[in-house]
């Protein structure tokens, strides 16, 4: 029954897509750091005229910049595992 109310939309991480059924509204999905796969997303309303507005939502997430740095230094993360973390300025850490 619930499936009847849900439109599944397959998206690629990091690729913004226009939300079907909405005008000027875009969804961007990405992954969060956690012990199991979890996601975060942002929904942006970008009208032709007027101010752009964005709502973001993170799922279960371990966010701790200092701790993430320490984990990186002791080799918990590897260069080739595709994991990228960002600081407040949006730069990879």
């Amino acid at each position, binding site marked *: 029954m619930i499936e009847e109310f849900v439109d599944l939309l397959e998206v690629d991480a990091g690729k913004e897509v226009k939300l079907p059924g909405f005008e000027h509204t875009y969804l961007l999905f990405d992954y969060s750091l*956690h012990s199991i796969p979890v996601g975060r997303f942002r929904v942006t309303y970008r009208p032709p005229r007027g101010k752009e507005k964005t709502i973001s*939502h993170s799922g279960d997430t371990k966010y*701790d910049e200092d701790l993430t740095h320490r984990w990186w230094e002791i080799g918990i993360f590897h260069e080739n595992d595709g994991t990228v973390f960002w600081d*407040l300025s949006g730069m990879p850490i």
Partner: protein
Amino acid sequence: MGFVWDADLIIQEVGGGNLHTELASLTHLRSSLAKKFVLVHQHKEPFDHPYFRFAQEGKTDVLIKSRKPKSRTKMDLIKDTVLFGNVKKSQLEKIVGQSKIQKLKAGEIVFSKNEIGNDFFLVLDGFAEIGINKNQSVVYEKGMFFGELAVSTTNPLRRATVKALSVLTLMKIPKKFYTQSSLPKIIDEFYQLGNYFNNILRPGLIAFLGLGGLAPLGKKVTLFLLTA
């Protein structure tokens, strides 16, 4: 984390154990940024913070004030529907003028199978369930229409029971306007085929044409119908 944190409203989980974000790891944020946060999923009792807001169980907060919607006329409600895409404005105004808006609560019946039908219905908002039999039903949503078989064929009986699955708003359109709507050609042909079977076999068969399925035609004959 720029992905999340340059938004105007930020919903961030906090708490829940070592594998989650601790509030302490966010407290270095500048106040202008912190004020954009709504913290959720906390495992400790929320408290008043000068900048951060906590979601609290059972409490409702207005995060974004909605604009008062403009009042919409019946014409506004249907002018963009595919069904009337090719109908001239003057004709559409005539149709709308003689149609009624019908609002139902979840669970209410729009019409029952075998009733005589004199109108067809356009879904303006909500969800309607078309019951084919005990095990099969389809859900219609905004922009879809139903009830047209009883008004477009020689069999005036409703083929199925339709009920509201949610709060449902319909436009109830008189029978005479059916031929003036712009149904896709494939639908017209589809119904012509349906009407053929309808007249010579059994009324319920046409419903199966919409779904694909097994339609028992007699004691020893079963027809398998598959729709693309």
